C-alpha cells in the first residue's frame, strides 16, 4: 500500500494545501512544518503556474505572490528536498509545467525529479483522464500515485475511466466552480460520495471547506479525508498583508490545522487528542458535542 493510501487507513485524513513560495520558500518550509504539527496526514504542495484556470481568487493571488517571489519548478524541487516532515507529499500543478520540464519533452523528467525529492503523488487539475496516459505511465515507472478529481458532473463511463487510472486517493470536488473557501458545505458532496461508495479508494473532499465544522460534516457524510486550501492560504495572505512574522503565521496555520483535523475526527466519532501546547488559542480546538 502506498504511504498516501496508508494515511487514510486508521482515521479520517486531513490534507492541507498551500502554494510553495507564498510569500517565499523559507516561509513555506515553516508553514509546512506547522501544518504537520497541526495534524496533517498528507500535504498538497502547489507548484505555481501562470494560468491557474481551476483556481479562485484566493489561490490565484497566492500563485501571483509566489511567482513574483521567483518560484520556479527547480526552486520548488529544491525547497521540497529540504523538508524534513514525516507525512506524504503530493505536488499539485498544471500540466504544462510537467510537460515542459527537462530537455526531452513529455512528463517523465518531471516525475523522475519529483520522486527524487520525495514527492509521492501528483494532482493535475487540467488533466482529465483522456489525456493522462503518458503521465500515468511515468508515475508507474517512478512509483508515484496519480490523484484525479471527480466533479459533481462526473458520472457513468467517465467515472469508470477515472477509476481505471486513479491511485492514492480520489479528490472529490465538493461543488462546481473553482477553489475558494465557502460559507457552507454543498449537498452535492453527499451525492458524489454516494456515487463513489462502491469504489475501494480513499475519498478526500475539497473545494470550499473552511472550518472544523465543515470538516466534521464532510467526514460524517462518508468521506475519508478533507482537503483544505483557500482557508489556509487566506491566513498566509492576511499575515503577509499585516506584516506579521513567519512564526506568527505558522502558529495560526497550526491552530487552524488542529481545528480542521479535529473536526474531521469528530465526524468519524473519534475524540481529538488534547494537545497541551496549544491551550487557549481561539478557534484552535474543534467544538465538542
Amino acid at each position: 500500500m502506498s504511504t498516501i493510501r496508508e494515511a487514510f487507513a486508521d482515521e479520517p485524513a486531513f490534507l492541507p494545501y498551500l502554494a510553495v513560495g507564498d510569500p517565499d520558500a523559507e516561509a513555506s518550509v515553516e508553514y509546512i512544518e506547522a501544518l504537520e504539527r497541526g495534524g496533517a496526514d498528507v500535504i498538497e504542495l502547489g507548484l505555481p503556474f501562470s494560468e491557474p484556470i481551476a483556481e479562485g481568487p484566493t489561490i490565484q493571488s497566492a500563485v501571483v505572490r509566489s511567482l513574483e517571489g521567483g518560484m520556479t519548478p527547480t526552486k520548488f524541487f529544491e525547497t521540497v528536498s529540504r523538508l524534513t516532515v514525516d507525512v506524504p507529499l503530493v505536488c499539485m500543478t498544471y500540466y504544462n509545467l510537467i510537460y515542459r520540464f527537462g530537455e526531452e519533452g513529455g512528463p517523465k523528467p518531471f516525475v523522475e525529479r519529483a520522486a527524487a525529492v520525495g514527492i509521492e503523488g501528483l494532482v493535475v487539475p487540467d488533466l482529465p483522464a483522456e489525456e493522462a496516459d503518458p503521465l500515468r505511465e511515468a508515475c508507474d515507472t517512478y512509483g508515484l500515485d496519480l490523484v484525479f478529481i471527480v466533479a459533481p458532473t462526473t458520472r457513468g463511463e467517465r467515472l469508470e475511466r477515472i477509476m481505471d487510472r486513479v491511485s492514492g486517493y480520489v479528490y472529490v470536488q465538493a461543488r462546481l466552480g473553482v477553489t475558494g473557501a465557502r460559507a457552507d458545505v454543498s449537498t452535492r458532496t453527499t451525492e458524489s460520495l454516494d456515487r463513489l461508495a462502491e469504489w475501494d479508494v480513499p475519498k478526500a473532499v475539497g473545494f470550499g471547506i473552511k472550518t472544523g465544522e465543515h470538516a466534521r460534516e464532510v467526514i460524517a457524510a462518508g468521506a475519508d479525508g478533507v482537503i483544505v486550501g483557500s482557508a489556509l492560504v487566506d491566513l498566509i495572505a492576511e499575515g503577509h498583508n499585516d506584516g506579521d512574522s513567519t512564526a506568527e503565521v505558522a502558529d495560526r496555520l497550526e491552530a487552524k490545522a488542529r481545528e480542521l483535523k479535529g473536526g474531521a475526527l469528530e465526524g468519524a466519532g473519534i475524540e481529538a487528542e488534547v494537545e497541551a501546547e496549544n491551550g487557549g488559542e481561539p478557534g484552535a480546538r474543534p467544538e465538542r458535542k
Partner: protein
Amino acid sequence: MSERASKPDEERNADPGSGSASTAGDDGERPGTYGEYGGQYVPEALMPAIEELDDVYERYVLENDEGFMDDFEARIRDFGGRPTPLQHAEQLSERYDFEVYLKREDLLHGGAHKLNNALGQCLLAKYMDKERIVAETGAGQHGTATAMAAAHLGLDCEIYMGERDIRRQRPNVFRMRLNGAQVNPVEAGRGTLKEAISETMRDWATTVEDTHYVIGSVVGPHPFPAMVRDFHRVIAEEIREQSIEKFDALPTSVVACAGGGSNTMGAFAAFTDSEDSAVGLVAVEAGGSSLSVDEDRGVAPNSASLSTGSEGVLHGARTKLLQDGYGQIMESHSISSGLDYAGVGPELANLVDTGRVRAVAVDDDRALEGFHRLSQEEGIIPALETAHAIAWLDEADSAEVGERVVLNVSGRGDKDLESALEETAKRDLDIAPDMHVFDAQAMTDSDEVAETNGQDVNEGAQ
C-alpha cells in the same frame, strides 16, 4: 507502489488504455488532434459539458440534424448580411505586381468576421437548451458579435474582458452594453485576452449546467477548434465561388492575419486539401515591437506564437505558445488587442509545421502603416488586426504569392480609432495624414486650462 482503485466485488481492468476506447477515432488517434497538437486539457468539471458539446457538434453542425445548419445559414444571411463581397482592390493592385482582392468580412454585421462563429455557437446553445452565454473578448469584436447574437436569440450574455483592453477598445464595450450584455473586467496579469479566457473558463466551470461558453477563436479544447473553424468556413467557400465568378480561377494565395486564427482558418478551410496545394496560404502574426523575448521578466513583446513559439498546453489544447523555459506562459504584446495572445489554434499550428501554411510576422510600426494605406488608397479603414495582413503585402514576392492574392479583411477599424490616433501621434510615419490638427486641439485645451488657472504654463519651468 501505486495501486489503482477497485470495486471490491468485481475485478477491474487495470490497463490504462482500456477506458479511452470510447473516444478513440477509427485510426486510433483521438479526435480533435492535429499532428502533435489539440486535445482536451481542461478540468474534469468541464469534461461532461465538452463531451455533450462534441456530440451536438457532430449532430447539428456536421450532420445538419433538425435542419440546424439551414437555420444557421438563413440567419447569417438575414441577420448577418452574408455573403460578403470579394472586391478587386484597384489601387493596391496597381501598387504591387499582383492583383489584390479583398474579402470584405468588415462588412459583416458587427464589423468583423466574428459573427459567423458567435451566431453559430449561440444558436447551438439555443438548440442545447442552455439559457446563458459567457464569452471572452480581446478586441471586443467577439464580445460585440456574441452580445448581438445573444440578443438576437434571446439569451443572457456575460462577457469577460481584460481591463487594459476595456480601455483600448471603449466603443466596443459600449456596443456590448447596448445589446444588453454584462461586461466583466478582468484585472489579473496584463489584463488582456489570455486572462479573459482563463476567467471565462472559471465562470464556465461554475455554471456549466445552464451555460455555454462561446469561445472566440479556433482555440481551446476539442471540439472548439473544429467547430469554430466550421462556422467560419463560409468565408473560404465564398472566396472559392466568388474567385471563379470573378476571374475564373482559384486565388494563387490567400492572406489573413492570425491571433487565435479564426479568420485565418475560416479563409483557409476550403483550400487545405491536397488538390488545392497550388493555393498559397499565408498567416500574418503580430510581431509587436520585437520578435525577441525577455525570459526573466516573462514578457514577449510580440504575439508571434507560430513564428517563435514552442509546443505546450494552454487553455485546453496542446499548441504553439509563447512560454519560458519552464512552461510559464509569457505576457504577449501587440498594437492590436485581437492578436495579443500567447497561443494559437492547434490546427493552424499543425498546418504551419507541415508546411501547408506559411507563417510571417509584421511589427506594430508596419501594421500601423498598413492601417493608413488601406484607409487612404482604398477608402476602407481596417481593424488594426487586419492591418498586419495588409502591411505584409508590401514585402510579398510576386514569384511566391502568384498573380491573384485574396486578402481577408477580417474587420473594420472603427473600434481602433482612438488607439490609431494615439499610436500615429507617437510615430513619424510618412504615410500618416498630417496630425497637426490634433496637436493644435491639444494645445488649445491646455491653453484653456492654463488660463482658468490664472497662470502661464511655462511659468514654473525656470
